[in-house]
């Protein structure tokens, strides 16, 4: 057999051996020969203060908005939702805090959860609890990779802005002759034991939650997220704020120059959306601060890389031209 035929077989075997070895090494060391090209939400660093009570403040013009497509939640019961087709996400960061602003279209302002047929508007942000080292399922995470969720609730916002809506506000025409102990916590078990849904005085319209799979969603022990939501001209703007530095057990950790992942969800109360019936996104890359934008590479390094690439391209173009034109001349 000719040497080149034998060499071909050897070359093929050697090549696939090397491919498998390379893939094995990548697997063992948990490396990837691919990088993300997905859309990225960047929290731009700002110096001027970000108003905590005005989601329409001019400082948000410094943020880079990203339009995130949403779809109905179709993984677990109760399925449905999907009335919001997209949410525009913005993020800012300063030395102390990180801010997220969600904006989406909603024809109605739904702030009540007091009656059985009423559902509130809401919005949520989700992060991998470990900061993105393991990317969990965006549907409430998984057992080995939990998620942190910040949910802004329209009714909680109304409780803060207008005061707690009791039965009298919800059903103004209802009448009772006598309602004993109406202000005694003893007779309101939920209120008495601290059920967050039963509280009458709220500090923040945002609830911080943790989850590790379906059916595990739990209110976090420490509530550190503030926020405000405002409805204007058929659009919601909801602001979420949290301090950058928190304790190990106080929620997801962010750092200037770092990156993680973020997903979003929106509920439209007037369309009966609640619980799992919502519009959801997949995880999107989140970069925090200007330093993160170049993946840690300085501008000088980038200039060097681009210069090298340009030189390489020029050489390749010249070589390709010589090769193609040369072949053209050789061909009879």
């Amino acid at each position, binding site marked *: 057999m000719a040497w*080149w035929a034998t060499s071909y077989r050897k070359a093929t075997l050697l090549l696939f051996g090397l491919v498998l070895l390379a893939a094995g090494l990548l*697997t063992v060391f948990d490396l990837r020969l691919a990088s993300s090209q997905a859309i*990225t939400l960047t929290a731009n660093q700002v110096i001027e203060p970000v108003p905590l009570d005005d989601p329409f403040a001019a400082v948000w013009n410094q943020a880079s908005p990203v339009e995130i497509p949403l779809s109905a939640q179709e993984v677990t019961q109760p399925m449905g939702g999907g009335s919001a087709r997209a949410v525009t996400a913005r993020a800012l960061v300063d030395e102390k805090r990180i801010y997220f602003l969600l904006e989406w279209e909603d024809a109605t302002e739904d702030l009540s959860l007091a009656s059985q047929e009423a559902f509130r508007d809401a919005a949520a942000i989700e992060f991998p609890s470990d900061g993105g080292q393991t990317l969990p399922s965006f549907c409430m995470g998984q057992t080995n990779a939990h998620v942190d969720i910040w949910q802004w609730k329209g009714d909680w916002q109304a409780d803060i802005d207008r005061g707690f809506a009791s039965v009298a506000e919800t059903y103004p025409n209802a009448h009772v002759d006598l309602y004993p102990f109406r202000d005694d916590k003893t007779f309101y078990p939920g209120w008495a034991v601290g059920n967050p849904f039963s509280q009458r005085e709220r500090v923040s319209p945002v609830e911080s939650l943790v989850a590790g799979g379906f059916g595990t969603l739990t209110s976090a022990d420490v509530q550190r997220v503030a926020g405000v939501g405002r409805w204007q001209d058929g659009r919601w703007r909801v602001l979420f704020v949290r301090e950058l530095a928190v304790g190990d057990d106080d929620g997801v950790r962010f750092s200037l120059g770092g990156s993680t992942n973020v997903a979003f969800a929106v509920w439209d109360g007037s369309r009966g959306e609640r619980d799992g019936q919502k519009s959801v996104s997949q995880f999107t890359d989140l970069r925090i601060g200007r330093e993160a934008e170049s993946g840690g590479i300085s501008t000088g390094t980038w200039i060097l890389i681009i210069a090298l690439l340009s030189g*390489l391209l020029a050489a390749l173009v010249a070589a390709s031209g010589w090769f*193609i034109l040369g072949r053209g001349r050789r061909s009879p």
Partner: protein
Amino acid sequence: MTLSRACPERSRRSLPLNNVTDALPVRGRSVRDGVRMADRADAVWLGDGETLLRPILAALVAAGLTELLLLRMLSRVGVHIPKEGLVLEGYSLLTSLGSFAFNVATVLAPLSLVALTYLLTRSARVGPAALGIATLSGLLALLFWSLVLPLVGTGPEANIAFGMTSAGLLVLLAAPYWTNGEVALARRIAVGLMVAAFLCSAYYTLSNTAYHLLGWTGSPPYGLPILGLGEALVVATGFAVFWAWGSWRWLKEWRAHKMLLALPSIVAILLLGSYLANGSTSAILALWTTGLTLYLPLPLYLASFWLYLVTVSGCLGGGQRTYEGWALLLLLVAGYNLELTYQHLLAVVAVLVLTRGAALASASASGTAAIQQARAAEAL
């Protein structure tokens, strides 16, 4: 008989033929220039009638499909299903296999592009010289970026550079194909729809990134509508692919083509069943695996997907259009939203094989002929 078989001399310098796999690879050509050392060396690379490209592409398709099924689908669905004991071990094993297949595919994807680029440089000139040079430069730039980005990390500048290179390359590959009157209209339309869909997806991603990089506030115009338009084009591509590489005879004479239709039908029925049975797990799977949101009526997706799979089955089953079958499978693995550099490479490899197959075949033929003549000389 294809043009290349009828007239090998012309095929070395002419535009691509209609039926790519009729010509790639080609056996039994006459050798005009005799056996040269250069051709012998090529033969080592190109192999005995089958280029090294063939096993690389076959392995890439196998690894890509494995990672699609085990990593992107099974691992993401299975994580929500309670498991213990043997089931848990089996699940862990399969997801590890999926992760390994992903790594194999990410290594093979640039290798495929290297092999294709090499063959393209050996092939006859396709279209204007400037276009050929630009295409080769684009291929090499894409290779460079795909290998550098995982090492240095990504940022908006890098993502734009890579995305622009990828999108520009797809246009460069498709442009001569669209304008080539020798290529069947259906195939030109099919490739046009594929590339247009990718461009819609690229517009959404790159315009958002560019806005951020330039510090512009607001959202790029028509971002989401164009993303939705691209999804509609993906659906249309399924029908166009069947028109281009399939045959109505397969459906009319379905009894004679039962084997060809069986697997695509089973897959389509499974998808429909999962959609009807447990409330559209298929919808979220489509989003995870391909980036499709399924906003159009489901029957459209099912019909398009079924025809696409029938075409793949027909291409691979007959053995006549293996490369097209592989290219279509690679497109499927790449998906609509190209979220990884690896997925970009798959899309480019697929479009390259679909549009430049005949040109590559002529390069393959020279190596094949060389080794055959050498064997004949050895036998004498």
